[in-house]
């Protein structure tokens, strides 16, 4: 995974709540067997509307998405994270993320930042007034900064460390392979196995 320390870019206001993963990328776009090429499916239905915020020229090239509450609800498809990344987004800011989407984003290096609703509203107003406003998402300092505003955000130390170092979770777990082996010795014999196939 690529390291994430700090990122500065322009931001796009997505004034919608409950942006589910079927909106982020509809199911018909999930048939690829690679991790790339999902940008075509990003917000596919909404992007057909020329007035949709991602289609507006003043937000072209913006790479921080600022959305309403409950972003990423629904399906567990990690393709939603890949679609946002493939399109160019580095970070998403919202007052609340769905758990699975948040987990997927932080595994894949797309920084999801929780800010209170009032702060999101203020950020929306700022970037609507001046779409060229640079917005900094700083994982080192755990801050979002723009204009003269500095807003702290919370993220647990472990996840922050993984992102700052760009560490691979599987590699981290494999350091504890002995613990896994020991645990396996203690599993009850009656726990089911899929092999050989019974019945």
């Amino acid at each position: 995974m690529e390291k994430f320390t700090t990122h500065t870019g322009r931001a796009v206001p997505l004034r919608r709540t409950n942006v589910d993963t079927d909106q982020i990328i509809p199911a018909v776009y999930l048939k690829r067997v690679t991790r790339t090429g999902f940008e075509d499916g990003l917000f596919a239905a909404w992007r057909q509307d020329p007035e949709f915020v991602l289609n507006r020229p003043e937000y072209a090239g913006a790479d921080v998405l600022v959305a309403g509450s409950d972003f990423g609800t629904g399906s567990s498809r990690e393709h939603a994270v890949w679609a946002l990344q493939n399109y160019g987004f580095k970070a998403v800011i919202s007052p609340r993320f769905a758990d699975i989407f948040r987990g997927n984003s932080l595994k894949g290096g797309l920084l999801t930042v929780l800010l209170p609703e009032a702060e999101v509203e203020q950020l929306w107003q700022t970037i609507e007034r001046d779409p060229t406003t640079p917005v900094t998402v700083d994982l080192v300092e755990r801050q979002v900064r723009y204009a003269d505003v500095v807003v702290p955000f919370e993220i647990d130390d472990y996840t922050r460390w993984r992102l700052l170092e760009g560490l691979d979770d599987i590699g981290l777990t494999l350091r504890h392979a002995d613990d896994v082996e020991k645990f396996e010795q203690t599993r009850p014999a009656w726990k089911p196995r899929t092999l050989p196939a019974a019945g």
Partner: protein
Amino acid sequence: MGRTLAEKVWQEHVVRSAEGEPDLLYIDLHLIHEVTSPQAFDGLRLAGRQVRRPDLTIATEDHNVPTVDVDQPIADIVSRTQVETLRKNCAEFGIRLHQMGDASQGIVHVIGPQLGLTQPGMTIVCGDSHTSTHGAFGALAFGIGTSEVEHVLATQTLPQYKPKTMAITVNGALPEGVTSKDIILAVIAKIGTGGGQGYVLEYRGEAIRALSMEARMTICNMSIEAGARAGMIAPDETTFAYLKGRPNAPSGADWDAAVAHWRTLVTDDDATFDAEVVIDAAELTPFVTWGTNPGQGAPLSASVPDPSAITDPGERGAVERALEYMGLQPGTKLRDIKVDTVFLGSCTNGRIEDLRAAAAVLKGRKVADGVRVLVVPGSMAVKRQAETEGLNQVFVEAGAEWRSAGCSMCLGMNPDQLAPGERSASTSNRNFEGRQGKGGRTHLVSPLVAAATAVTGRLSAPSDLD
């Protein structure tokens, strides 16, 4: 201090716990399907890693599969490639696969319980958010992303932060004609699509105890629609009776040892939950959604809400948007909403009891003119059982289409889709914009409401047919 069911199952699976780090949890069962696994297998190959426990892993083909001509290759070349990729990966890594045409093929969350692989006290994961279904057995079961699928394949573990716990207590008895689908739709409308975020839900109370295993699965299945990754119900005699004799259930002395352990998997009397919601079953009625998320629902007797009566501007905007997408006018009686399609199926309501309930309504009746009705069993085993009972005849005589097993119109990855502007009553789990096909409009309903709606062509309950 006492512990909740979720805490007990969690603690039994902690491989490693360290200050300031997520717990490393052992995973008892990993379910796989074609959509969320290819990139995970690629990751293994790139890193030169193996699947640690193929014997705790099982795969099926469900999301892309057509529900007609299942003995033919998949016509959609991209879908076919995805399915063939799963076949290659399972062969390479030694994973059991139930492919199209196989007697045990079906929706991943239908076949696990059916085979007896889903058991109380297990940790179960799948790259699919409706993995919460398996919580009906008192398992801790949750959906994961593809990176986590790769992690489980490689290590049979997952690093996880312990969630909070929320009790959903449903007291009393359900009135006639009210199902577990109505319970969960009412719960989601009450706590919202984010209400369960960060929690494991435990469904409790008399009304839950009285439910069959299949009805319990319907409730746990939609926990994710309230934002909770997992929902659980403590195992009891109903659970044990369902499991006994299934192909992968323990037998003989193992069965006794397992049941003795399973009986300990209840929330202690002195345990506390981080949050609690109480619902009176007697007040519930058939419930349907009118909007574009599963929290936007109301009793069938209600009307489409009026956004101008909502004071919160964000909420008002969300309702306005939903009504515009759904093509609905405020104040319209939900019973006056006409549908084009009825979909009976999915991991929420594609089990034999669901088909029986719908067939009982349709028996001797006809589908309304101009309404298309798709009946898609959740698995090939459900299909065979239904055919043994003659349910397929009831559906076909009423004018419905009898299909083979798969996810089908729940998410429209196969050819079963709504056309733009088309409206459905669907027993599935999500009414998101375009979920069932681009521009399609979905009303989530129970199998009973689906069947009655098929007859009248408008959102209806069986009691409307008398």
